[in-house]
């Protein structure tokens, strides 16, 4: 009888807490959103399932969780905690990105820069709420709307907040079609939304090959902290554009990025244990996911994302004051680097006003510039705040 009692107390039913149940419900919600609503299914589904895995209770002596040394999940999570997966994802993004729209209209790059204001204003906001400089930097990067960059930076600056930051970043990326359109409509007039832009010029093969090399050197010299992410992004792009390494480019943009996405998604999800007591200076502190801190991170992330969208839009309007050939300000919203979702949203909103207005190719320019911009911002924050 004692043995049976001991077994029953060691089952998941015996150890399940209300916090675990809440997290499991959130995980199921993510899976539902991925399957039913198609919101970033490639990310939300692995993350959602990982959340369920991470919140299944087990005896402490069994050491199976992400944070338990020697467990299988801890080895998979090492790619996240050591910042290994994000650069590989960046290489895959580089290998699938066509920079020619950006090359054909370089002034649109500035919109990708303007959208990064979301990052820096959120840092100030996070400091106001009591976060340290490093924590604020890691939270602010959510405004870049770039999951890999958020994970990379938080693994360097605030590893204890990584789970919440990663979940917030990917959630908002998935919610791009929900969050951005109201802001876009609020900040533009109908006349502005109807602006048609001239088709982009043809870009030569040589330009496409020279660009990743020169741009990488420039970025790495200005912000050495961005070397890893930007380096892998442009390396992946060079694999694609050189035409002589098609096999490598194909692997980087398909199998490799898929494998890393699976490992990253599941392990980030599994890192969201509801309650995780850690002893700090002899005092037990909850470093789990369900804390008021996580809620603040989600609120700051939403703020950051909205400001980033508004920043790109308003800067496009500002540029129009000086330009002969006007930019459709909607394109500025694509300055957040959720590629290619925010560019698609621009196309969708533009076409809802005029079905013959095709903004997708124009929006791709600030969109990929946003990827570069957020990686540069991460590099800056890393170099300033890590010391």
């Amino acid at each position, binding site marked *: 009888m004692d043995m049976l009692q001991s077994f029953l107390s060691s089952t998941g039913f015996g150890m399940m807490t209300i916090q675990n149940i809440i997290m499991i419900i959130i995980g199921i919600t993510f899976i539902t959103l991925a399957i039913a609503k198609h919101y970033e299914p490639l990310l939300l589904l692995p993350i959602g399932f990982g959340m369920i895995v991470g919140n299944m209770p087990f005896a402490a002596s069994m050491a199976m969780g992400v944070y338990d040394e020697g467990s299988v999940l801890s080895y998979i999570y090492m790619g996240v905690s050591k910042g290994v997966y994000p650069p590989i994802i960046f290489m895959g993004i580089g290998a699938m990105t066509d920079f020619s729209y950006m090359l054909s209209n370089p002034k649109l790059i500035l919109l990708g820069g303007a959208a990064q204001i979301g990052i820096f204003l959120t840092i*100030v906001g996070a400091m106001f709420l009591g976060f340290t400089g490093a924590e604020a930097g890691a939270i602010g990067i959510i405004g870049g709307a770039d999951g890999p960059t958020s994970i990379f930076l938080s693994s360097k600056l605030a590893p204890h907040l990584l789970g919440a930051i990663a979940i917030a970043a990917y959630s908002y990326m998935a919610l791009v079609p929900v969050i951005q359109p109201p802001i876009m409509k609020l900040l533009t007039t109908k006349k502005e939304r109807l602006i048609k832009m001239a088709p982009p010029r043809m870009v030569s093969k040589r330009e496409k090959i020279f660009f990743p090399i020169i741009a990488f050197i420039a970025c790495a010299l200005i912000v050495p902290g961005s070397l890893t992410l930007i380096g892998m992004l442009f390396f992946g792009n060079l694999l694609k554009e050189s035409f002589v390494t098609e096999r490598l480019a194909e692997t980087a943009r398909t199998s490799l990025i898929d494998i890393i996405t699976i490992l990253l998604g599941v392990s980030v999800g599994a890192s969201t244990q509801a309650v995780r007591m850690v002893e700090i200076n002899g005092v037990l502190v909850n470093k789990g996911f369900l804390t008021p801190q996580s809620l603040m991170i989600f609120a700051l992330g939403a703020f950051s994302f909205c400001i980033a969208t508004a920043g790109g839009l308003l800067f496009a309007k500002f540029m129009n004051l000086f330009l002969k050939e006007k930019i459709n300000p909607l394109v500025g919203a694509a300055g957040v680097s959720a590629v290619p979702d925010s560019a698609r949203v621009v196309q969708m909103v533009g076409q809802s006003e005029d079905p013959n207005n095709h903004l997708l190719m124009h929006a791709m320019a600030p969109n990929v510039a946003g990827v570069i911009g957020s990686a540069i911002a991460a590099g800056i924050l890393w170099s300033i705040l890590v010391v």
Partner: protein
Amino acid sequence: MGFIEKGLQNIVVNNGSSLAIVGMGIVFFALAFIALIIAVLPYFLKLLDKIVPEKIVEPQVRVRTSSDDGAIIAAIASAIYKKKQKIG
């Protein structure tokens, strides 16, 4: 000390406002520099074209190089045929 005062003090202690201004400035400068490079690149390439004309390179097409492909296909077809005969 009130919540607002505490928050503002935390921003001052962590140099929040200067970090935001300097950070945003550097991001903008880096992207503007890239935009400048891109704007100049076509002119540079025109010059380069005069010295080394651009060759048109076609993307690599995956071509099966194995000379045994035909033999393998024939072997598979034969195996399937024999299996179907057995089943039949």
